[in-house]
């Protein structure tokens, strides 16, 4: 606003003599005279001091302005001019105001170029944190604008001069500090090294280390940087006033201030040079080199010809040559911005125009406000104070920015939907995440979209697969997998927010693997680690690289990442569950097939010799069980061999073992081996050291005369229900090891003889170990009672037993397969 005020004042049509005053003096010393103006024609020269104007003695520019306002264009006005030791009375014809020279216009153009580039960068990063390069760059650009427009302004008599020139002086004091500040944080913070690292660790020299710590880490360092020039300025003038000595001012500031400001500029360039030398990545190097060259070529001629010459030698003949190259500074910044694609350039022009319009509207409002204020305070004490214009200007400055911000928000919302791109993008990502059930596609969606939204160089996702986190396809160069036991992963899982990689530095000392991983991530330029957690458990880890702008992640960035990460975690979990469910469905299908296969392998009818009746059932606990029964090829004429097996493991593995065991038994039986040999062969075939698999088996040989011989390999002894209703347990053989339990083994056979009507019941342990909802086992006693109570043929026996067990178990999940084979000797031959 001050800059606009200055420019407006320069070109307003009103009577003007053509005198340009020394900007840094409170009196009316002539700095130059506009060529062809009334003052030029009248012979007023640089160095003259105007003492009177239009019959009034004037001592200050404000008094001169008031005196001049009483006259119009074309009027001849008497000037009292001090030249050397004498006073001259000169008559000057007033002309229209022509103060704005092409040089000044050029300076204004350069200033606004700075400002708009700074503004654009700032608006492109509305979430940038205070002190970030974006903010400092904007401050630097604004100070350049104020300096060029206010400081290089040809001063006349108007009150605007005081406001503008004071602003110009303040900007001059702050500009070198902002310059140094910017180059200390651009493209990233420059670290001062005064003490070698090893000396730091060993305690090191105190003062130097303290200075180093202060420069590199203290938040007050930059505050001090900005405070030093005004403090030095005020102190020099204050001491001069206290000692009653006149401090020599060079272009309005003590020499000490100029020396300090020069130091700042040189240090700023050195900081930029240091960044250039330290930059490893080619793109970054080119970016810094561009800015460095532009800054050196732009600033150096200006410092020499535009500042030193006029100030020290009172020679402003080369001012234009000094000012022209200055435009290189914003241009190189602009080039770096566009060339290295830091920002989307397409809206810059539109934005600039609209913000200018907004500023104009606000300025107009304030102009009306000023008029109202003047009217209000016209007769008040304050209004009569010479400080009133200054206070008013300060008040306007104080109020301008809040109002502008207030207006800017609706303007942004209305005109610049881009401002809300991020928010909208998050919403879109949410929708996409909800729709997506492919873990692989989610991986790509999360990393790609996040990179687009935040303008990241890269992003990748590590997804937990068992005991490791496996990297996605992006970010080649990062470790392929991260062990789930890494300390750093536990640390990331502990935080709800994204964790800057720097925060994990202390963990390097705890864990060698973590150290290696962190170094690998750091070397690749990783900035943030984001845990994707569900119910506190880390399901995935997102690693984010630097932003294209090289800015730090802002608060809003972190919030956005957190939102996306939370949604991503849920989406990943959903995808995982979905995949598991799909797999389960698939498995169930496969189980169904397996069950059919299994059942197809279990004979529907068991062949038995004459005089025997048989009924059998095999009820797997799961869809596919490990129990089975089968009839082996006949060993002798008139006999039959039945096996009832129970393999270790349930479901598909158990079923597979069952198939294998059945096959082994069938194969061995076909070879004509005796039951003992069959058992031994089967044992050998089924034996494996790892994994340990074994099969419980009851090998029953039915004789032609009601005799039954049986061997038990881990199976319970059969029950015999006598025709009288008595139930007894068959004699148990001595050797009863399950098949496959040991490499070798021998099984002996027990023999019982059944009377007509007796029933032999062979069963698997799943029958007695069936549990009800209370966890009680069905048990031997209950089985004995049931068997005692049953009647009818073998099928009836089997049905009643299964029914009783079913009643006992109730709604409880079947624990084990249940197989029951009932054999009844009728005595017929």
């Amino acid at each position, binding site marked *: 606003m001050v800059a606009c005020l200055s420019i407006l004042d320069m070109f307003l049509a009103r009577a003007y003599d053509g005198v340009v005053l020394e900007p840094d003096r409170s009196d009316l010393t002539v700095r130059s005279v506009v060529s062809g103006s009334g003052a030029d024609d009248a012979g007023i020269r640089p160095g003259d001091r105007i003492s009177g104007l239009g019959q009034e003695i004037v001592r200050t520019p404000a008094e001169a302005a008031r005196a001049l306002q009483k006259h119009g264009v074309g009027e001849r006005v008497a000037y009292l001019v001090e030249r050397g030791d004498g006073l001259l*009375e000169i008559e000057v014809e007033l002309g229209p105001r022509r103060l704005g020279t092409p040089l000044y216009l050029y300076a204004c153009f350069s200033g606004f170029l700075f400002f708009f580039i700074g503004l654009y960068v700032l608006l492109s990063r509305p979430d940038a944190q205070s002190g970030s390069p974006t903010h400092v760059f904007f401050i630097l650009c604004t100070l350049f604008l104020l300096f060029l427009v206010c400081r290089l302004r040809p001063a006349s008599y108007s009150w605007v001069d005081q406001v503008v020139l004071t602003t110009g002086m303040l900007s001059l004091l702050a500009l070198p500090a902002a310059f140094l500040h910017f180059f200390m944080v651009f493209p990233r913070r420059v670290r001062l090294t005064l003490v070698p690292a090893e000396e730091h660790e060993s305690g090191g020299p105190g003062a130097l280390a303290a200075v180093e710590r202060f420069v590199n880490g203290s938040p007050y360092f930059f505050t001090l940087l900005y405070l030093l020039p005004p403090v030095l300025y005020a102190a020099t003038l204050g001491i001069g006033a206290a000692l009653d000595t006149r401090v020599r001012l060079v272009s309005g500031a003590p020499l000490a201030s100029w020396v300090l400001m020069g130091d700042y500029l040189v240090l700023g360039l050195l900081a930029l040079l240091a960044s250039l030398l330290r930059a490893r990545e080619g793109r970054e190097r080119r970016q810094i080199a561009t800015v460095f060259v532009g800054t050196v070529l732009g600033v150096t001629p200006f410092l020499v010809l535009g500042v030193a010459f006029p100030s020290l030698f009172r020679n402003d003949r080369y001012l234009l040559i000094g000012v022209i190259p200055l435009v290189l500074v914003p241009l190189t910044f602009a080039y770096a911005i566009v060339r290295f694609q830091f920002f989307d350039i397409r809206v810059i022009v539109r934005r600039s125009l609209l913000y200018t319009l907004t500023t104009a509207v606000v300025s107009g409002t304030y102009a009306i406000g000023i008029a109202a204020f003047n009217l209000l*305070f016209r007769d*008040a*004490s304050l209004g009569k104070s010479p400080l009133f214009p200054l206070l008013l200007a300060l008040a306007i400055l104080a109020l301008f920015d809040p109002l502008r911000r207030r207006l800017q928000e609706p303007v942004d919302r209305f005109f610049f939907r881009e401002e809300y791109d991020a928010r909208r993008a998050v919403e879109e990502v949410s929708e996409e995440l909800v729709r997506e059930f492919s873990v692989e596609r989610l991986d790509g969606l999360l990393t790609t979209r996040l990179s687009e939204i935040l303008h990241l160089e890269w992003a990748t996702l590590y997804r937990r697969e068992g005991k490791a986190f496996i990297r996605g396809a992006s970010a080649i160069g990062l470790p392929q997998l991260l062990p789930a036991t890494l300390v750093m992963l536990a640390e990331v899982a502990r935080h709800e927010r994204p964790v800057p990689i720097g925060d994990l530095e202390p963990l390097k000392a705890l864990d060698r693997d973590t150290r290696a991983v962190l170094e690998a991530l750091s070397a690749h330029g990783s900035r943030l680690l984001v845990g994707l957690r569900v119910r506190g458990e880390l399901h995935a880890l997102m690693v984010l690289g630097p932003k294209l702008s090289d800015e730090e992640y802002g608060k809003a960035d972190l919030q956005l990442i957190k939102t996306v990460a939370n949604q991503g975690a849920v989406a990943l979990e959903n995808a995982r569950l979905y995949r598991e469910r799909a797999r389960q469905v698939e498995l169930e299908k496969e189980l169904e097939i397996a069950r059919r296969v299994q059942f197809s392998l279990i004979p529907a009818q068991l062949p038995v010799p004459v005089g025997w009746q048989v009924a059998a059932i095999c009820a797997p606990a799961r869809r596919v069980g490990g129990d089975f029964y089968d009839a082996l090829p006949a060993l002798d004429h008139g006999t039959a061999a039945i096996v009832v097996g129970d393999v270790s493991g349930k479901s598909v593995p158990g079923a597979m073992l069952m198939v294998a065991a059945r096959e082994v038994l069938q194969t061995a039986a076909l070879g004509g081996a005796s039951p003992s040999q069959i058992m031994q062969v089967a044992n050998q075939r089924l034996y494996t050291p790892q994994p340990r698999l074994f099969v419980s088996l009851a090998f029953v040989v039915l004789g032609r005369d009601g005799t039954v011989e049986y061997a038990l390999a881990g199976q319970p002894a059969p029950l015999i229900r006598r025709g009288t209703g008595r139930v007894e347990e068959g004699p148990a053989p001595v050797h009863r090891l399950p098949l496959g339990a040991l490499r070798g083994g021998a099984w002996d056979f027990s023999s019982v003889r059944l009377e007509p009507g007796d029933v032999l019941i062979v069963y698997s342990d799943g029958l007695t170990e069936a549990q009800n909802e209370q966890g009680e086992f069905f048990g031997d006693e209950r089985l004995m009672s049931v068997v005692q109570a049953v009647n009818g043929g073998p099928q009836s026996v089997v049905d009643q037993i299964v029914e009783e067990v079913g009643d006992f178990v109730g709604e409880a999940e079947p624990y084990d397969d249940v197989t029951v084979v009932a054999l009844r000797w009728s005595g017929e031959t």
Partner: protein
Amino acid sequence: MKARSLIMIAGAAAVLVSATWWAARPAPREWSTDSEEALSAFLAGREATQKLYFLEAIEHMRTALKHDEDFVAARLGLADALASAGQGDAARAERDRALEADASSLTPRERRGVELARLRRDGGQREVLALLEKSVQEFPGDPTLTRSLASMYYGRGDAEAAVAWFEKTLELAPNDGLSYNTLGYIEMGRGDFAAAEANLKRYAFIAPDQANPHDSLGELYTITGRWNEAIAEFRRALEVNPRFFPAWEHLARLHVLEGNEPAALEATERFCGLAGLGEAECEVRRAVMRAWVAWIRKDDAALTAEVEALRTAPGYNDVLMLRHFAALGAREFESAVEIEEKLEASLKKAGAEEKGPAQGALKELLVAARLVSSGDFATAVNSAAAADRLFNYNADGGQGVLKLIARALHVEALIASGRLSEARSVLASLEAVNPRFPGVNELRAGVRGR
């Protein structure tokens, strides 16, 4: 909205309203009138008074009183302007009327003005001075009071205090012509001709339609030997105000110094005409001019003849000096001593303190001239030095020229005493002020030993 936010907004609003109320409160009234027209005319009158435009000031003050006849400040301003314009009776009448005002209806500043006017009328100078000193403490921003105090000090011969208070007045009112004029004369009297010129030029700048500042500048240039510029300023004064007769008198004296008798007599004629002098008085002035020209030309016979014509003229200083110089030319030292004694007697009669240093200096000058003529150079040195010291450069009353005459006598006595080194030094100081002063060339030759 949270309660905290509401409290903060309410607090901020309260602060804002209080600050606005404080800032917008009306300034204490300085003047009692409610009439804007009266106040505006009064302020214009004050500005005119500052620039010594007394007639305009009278008009403005009367306008102010027409709008508000009880406006005491305007009436006192009118009284001052009338007094400055030489209308003493009318001034006194207005002042007395102002003093009758009801003090309760006046502002503190106006009450103080009334008090001062009453003291000026009834009290002594010391009481007025004391009240003025008190007033400038109480009303430090009022240039009228500071100027009055400065003028009081100037009138009492305290140049240092006068300068300080005039400068203070100019800080408060940079267009106060009266202050520039008086400062110009004070600086001229002290020999700081550059400062005097600057002040008088500023006065001339702010009052371009006044003859007085140009006339004053002419006097300054007369003393300093810038005679062409002096003539131009006198003529400018007469251009601005053709009836400004003092310029003609000053022009006549300048022509005397040039030795240009016809021009001096012509200027004297114009002076007499404009000043309305009678033929007898005018003839005395013509004779004085001719006599001075004769003295400058060292034409003793002509001097004696002209002084003879002044035998019956009143005892002006000019006439006394010319008689004295004629007596010396005729080597009638006793007559010269008689004149000196006559002058001394008149000094005693009038009271030397009241007359200031000029009369004492004049006696020393006459004594020095006699001693040089009688050959008592050693004693003449002391008298001439004393006369030089006692006179100032102030052109008002012709002291500046007399001071330079005393210095020339001093040089002459030193040369005659053989103290050439001292003579050169004093001559240099004379040349520094006015290198064209009559007799300087002879003195230059004298110090060279020719």
